[in-house]
């Protein structure tokens, strides 16, 4: 199976008030096509920073990121932008409050010339439908949509450019549990229908257990454990991973029993 993304010896340092902060310390990992790789960690683990590096919002201090064997660590070109998209955590801030929903969704369509100018409104409606939203929402502003609806719009925007990889940064953490269930199902369907690779950044191990096939556990900027999801949960090796799993408040006795 081909590695669509190769992260080699990535280090990211920040200078905060003349102190050096190491957010990521010599991280290496590979992502295969079709993976749903969960990147798990608590605050300060570096998972958000890793997401930002993969998305090209910042550059690594050391190391390289390879996309389809091409080095994309320095500058992103338009093709890279098209192929790697994002769904962010906070539905309240992921859409420009002053722009209509159709503007937000059509942005990638226009930049990457996905369809002809005349066909844009039609394509926007198609995208809204594919995330389960009514076409009437196209002319609304984000303030009239619920959190769940806004996340769906964010997903529609993410798939608009026909990307290959989507980085999901805590996509359901700000949603209620019933809404989360619907959005997780939507994400799963979309991954299948559009042949996508997901990088799923989250702290919610319950979600990780059921959406991902591989897991990487980060602590203080380093990888403490990685492997197949089933392995990690049934036979966690590192003490930190075990502690994380133990700390989850579960809703049933049988889940309680399988904790390490």
């Amino acid at each position, binding site marked *: 199976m081909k590695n669509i993304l190769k992260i080699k010896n990535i280090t990211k340092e920040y200078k905060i008030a003349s102190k050096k902060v190491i957010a990521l310390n010599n991280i290496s990992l590979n992502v295969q096509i079709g993976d749903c790789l969960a990147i798990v960690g*608590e605050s300060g683990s570096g998972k958000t920073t890793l997401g930002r590096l993969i998305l090209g919002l910042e550059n690594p201090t050391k190391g390289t990121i390879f996309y389809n064997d091409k080095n994309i660590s320095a500058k992103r070109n338009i093709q890279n932008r098209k192929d790697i998209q994002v769904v962010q955590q906070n539905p309240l801030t992921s859409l420009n409050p002053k722009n209509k929903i159709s503007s937000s969704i059509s942005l990638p369509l226009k930049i990457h010339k996905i369809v002809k100018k005349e066909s844009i409104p039609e394509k926007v409606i198609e995208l809204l439908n594919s995330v389960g939203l009514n076409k009437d929402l196209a002319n609304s502003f984000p303030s009239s949509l619920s959190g769940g609806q806004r996340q769906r719009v964010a997903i529609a925007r993410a798939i608009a450019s026909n990307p290959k990889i989507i980085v999901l940064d805590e996509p359901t953490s700000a949603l209620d549990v*019933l*809404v989360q*269930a619907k959005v997780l199902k939507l994400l*799963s369907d979309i991954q299948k229908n559009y042949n996508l690779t997901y990088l799923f950044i989250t702290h919610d191990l*319950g979600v990780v*257990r059921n959406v991902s096939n591989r897991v990487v556990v980060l602590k203080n900027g380093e990888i403490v454990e990685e492997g197949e999801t089933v392995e990690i949960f049934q036979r966690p090796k590192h003490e930190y991973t075990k502690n994380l799993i133990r700390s989850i*408040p*579960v809703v049933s006795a049988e889940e309680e029993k399988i904790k390490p």
Partner: protein
Amino acid sequence: MNSLLSIESLELSFELYKRNLKVLNKINLNLFKGEKIAVVGESGSGKSVMLRIILGILNDKNALIQGKVFFDSIDLRTQKQNYMKNYIRGREISMIFQDPMASLNPVFTIRDQITNVIKLKNKNLKKNEVEDIAFEQLKKVSISDVGRVLDSYPFQLSGGMAQRILIIMALMNNPKIVLADEPSTALDVTLQKQALNLMNELANEIQSAMLLVTHNLGVVREFAERVYVIYRGTIVEEGLIDDIFNNPQHPYTIALLEAVPRLTGHGLPKFDPNPPEYEKIKKFSHSSLTKYYEKHS
């Protein structure tokens, strides 16, 4: 019934552009001495705003409130702000809020803020007496460098530390009731466990009753003895912890439980694409409650 807190037929609506928004719909709730209960619901259910009504801190000109909130047989809804400020808030009833960083005043040191709380109970303490109490309290929760923490400003502390301090401040004056509004949601899962354990310990020590409001069913299961499930301002189910989790009856409770992703890896959580109008389905009270209430009367 001999309950410490008794909410009777509480209703809340907001006057908006062109319509009235009903947020709480005839809420009835009881809390007994030393009990730990949870009110679980999603956002918009009204659970957080209910806590604010209990303490009388709902500051909205458009709010219309009806109903009674009895604390120790006094209807708090009829009391003046002065009474609430001097006798109830921070003394008899205290509250722990969701985001520790937003709950602490960023321009005052921890010492200043704890001092304020200590002085609520006894205005006449001298400076060194206050300092002693503050030291003792922080040491109790295994904060090692107490002096440094007292000197610090909130931004210099970690989220976990700040939450511990908030919990201490809420329990310091031996309140009869502690209200907690999603107290651990902003924390990492390991810190969340610590915070909940701490709340449990301290509350047990002083026999404080706790009312926890949350959307996290796992937290409810680990923390509460009795549960109210709330949907869009209406209580739809009430029961003891085992009944709710092993034998949920109301369709909404069942839907909530099914929607939680399981550690056992049962796949994507299930949901009903066409749910019924949950608030129209009658409330279910588990039968074991009758005996339970008798015990507490």
